[in-house]
């Protein structure tokens, strides 16, 4: 297990969190957070390779979370994905441009496809900053 990539998935829907873990537990080491704040807590103490976040959440949104990470950990940014049922185009654009978003994935996701994207981001970004 020690050599698996570490994924942090943040979504306010408990069902989504559970399904994500059950889908990828075989491939990655997974941390789950039901809010952006809890996600930041985990980031503080764990080494995370990829962050996947929902956009529309009560309190801090996915975009705001990405901004917080960008400000707090400018030197060791984990790779970021966003998964959402719906997001305004402007929000996604900002996330790409400013906060290092790698891909935007619409719900519902296909497990195999999402796994490829995760692996893809890790490989793409590998030479750069890991």
């Amino acid at each position, binding site marked *: 297990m020690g050599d698996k990539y570490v994924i942090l998935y943040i979504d306010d829907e408990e069902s*989504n969190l*559970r*399904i994500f873990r*059950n889908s990828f537990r075989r491939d990655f080491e997974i941390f789950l957070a039901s809010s952006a704040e809890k996600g930041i807590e985990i980031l503080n103490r764990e080494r995370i390779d990829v962050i996947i976040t929902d956009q529309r959440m*009560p309190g801090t949104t996915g975009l705001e979370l990405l901004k917080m990470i960008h400000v707090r950990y400018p030197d060791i940014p984990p790779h970021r994905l966003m998964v959402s*049922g*719906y997001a305004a185009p402007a929000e996604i654009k900002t996330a790409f441009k400013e906060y290092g978003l790698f891909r935007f994935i619409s*719900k519902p996701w*296909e*497990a195999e496809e999402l796994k490829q994207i995760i692996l893809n981001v890790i490989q793409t970004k590998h030479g750069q900053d890991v």
Partner: protein
Amino acid sequence: MQQNNNDFKAEKYYQQIVNLANVAILKFDRQFILTDFTGNSEKIFGFKKEEVIGRSLYETIVPHQESSGRNLVKLINAVIDHIDSYEYNENENIRKDGTRIWMQWYNSEIRNQKNELTGILSIGIDITDRINMEAALKESEERFKTLSDLTFEGILIHDNGLIIDCNLSFERQIGYARNELIGMQLFDRLIPHGYREQMMHKISMDSVQYEAETIHKDGTIIPISIESKSTKIGEKQVRVAAIRNISELKRTIHELDQYKHHLEEIVRQRTHELKTKSKELQQQNDLLQMERNQLRTIIDHIPDLIYIKDTKSRFLNANLMQIIHLRQKELSEITGKTDRDFFNENYAGKYYTDEQHIMSTGNPMINTEELGINEKDEQIYLSSTKIPLKDKNGKIVGLVGIGRDITEKRIAENKLTIQKKYLEEYNLLLEERTQKIEKLNADLFDSNDKLESANRILSERKKELEQALEQLKTAQSQLIQSEKMASLGILLAGIAHEINNPVNFIYAGVNSMIKDFEDISMVIESCNAIQDQSSDVHTLLTRFDALKKEHEFETAYIAITETLQDVKLGATRIREIVNGLSRFSRMEQEQWKSTDIHDEIDSVLVLLKNKYKHHIEVVKEYDSSLPLVECHAGKLNQVFMNIINNAIDAINQSQGRITIKTGKYDDHVFISITDTGCGIKEEEKKKIFDPFFTTKEVGYGLGLGLAISYSIIQEHDGEITVKSAVGKGSEFIIKIPVVQFKGK
């Protein structure tokens, strides 16, 4: 009541009487200042009235001392202080030319309305003649006495007729020198024969007084008075006689008797006359005073302003109204003053110019309008009459003025004029109208036929209109439906996201379960294979456990159990949303139907959930006993959708709360939807139900939502009202009857 001797009637009557009575009438105040000087005062004292008014008694007609030395200052003080004891007094006065005259005065007090003594009214008669007469009498008596005293009394001393001595007076009386007389036989030479016997007899008496005659040296017989008595000169008995030539005396006495008698007669007559006159004067004075008081009372209470001014337009007298008009309380506060002391130059100057013109030309001013200022400083109109006052010589000495406040009359007149003008115009208008109506009437008869044909056209038009109305109704109901669909369109993106989460539960969940199932299947298949290879249970179990570990059997098993729940949750949520959508988008087919209002609201909330779930708390205060309501549910939930959607937009992205409350009131139900949003501006409150009124950005609403809602609630015979406060939020209250009226 103060004296007023300047009113017209009283003046005239009074003037006649005082002219006849030849009396002086004057008034002076407590400071001895003359305030009036009428009757024959001017003639008696030689002063003109204007020379003395306002001056002290002591500067004019009263000397400080009488010729006899009596102190008149004390006397006049006593008159003021003790009028009861000085109703009548006599004293010396002084004329302008300095001559002294004696006056008999009748004094009466002048009191003001507060019954305070303000002065003295004195009526005087010139009694100088009488006093002089009395003095003359006294003088003549003294003269008589002096005369008597100074009359030479001849003194003769004799002894039985032989003259011993005589005095110088006797010498003068008898014409002989003393030395001739001494030793002369009295009876032989000096006494006529006729008296000799008598006198011889008399000298024998002790003391005797008698009259006799004597013979002057020149032979004339002189009547004499003799007083003789026997006395001793030394040891000698002699006779001393005092002889008086009484020829002069006898004549004087006779004349004096006559004169005295005459004087007494005159004094008696005069005294009687004076007494009678005084009495008459007193009576007349009382009468006058009474009349004057009556007149004064009347004049004071006439609402007109009445005043008398002198030639310099100074107030001499005025009635109470005028005094009040001048903002004063007492006549004494205005006498001697002019309008300039009370009004500004705009008014006082005009009055002064007018009055000077009246007095210089003698032409009175009759009922002329003047501007004035009343005691409240308001401008008033006065109708003023000012008539010059003349003395008996025809010289103008002042004027009498009467002013009447005609402000109200003027205003009324103005109004009347305007009204009259209106009336005239109205009358004209009426005439025109009457003519027009007559013409119209004629025209009407003509057009009646035309009307009938027009009527036919009208009924045709009415049919057309009814058809148009029907079309309009159809159009409106289409519009309602369109609005509904439009709002649904706007919501659709949100609803899609809301569906995407439960779809993900199912889609990703099923994929996840497939993997889990593969793991579990692998364990089961391996188990089946092992079962075939060996029958040793222990070995089998050990292998089985190893397989389970290898394929994380337990984890997969728990994951499947969990994921099944999530899939079920996703399916339920999708069903709810679809339910809400189908409920919301119901078409016309089902019309009036008993409906659970709460279900309708809930279905709307499901559709809107995506818009509010992250930041708005929805509080439902449903009345659990709310009856089913007869309504058009498809339309009613359109209303709820619009209002709740607006509430969410009003709260915008901040944290907020929407409270939905239902209840029953009589045969109505109400639904109250309260938000904690931005509220509605006062000026926008009236417009919110207008079509195409919106505060939202383009693409977020057509501006038809509330207009359509309003028409839907009207269709339900209900009401929709709004309360709102900017910054605090809004409350929409919908009220609809439980049962619709049968006639629908």
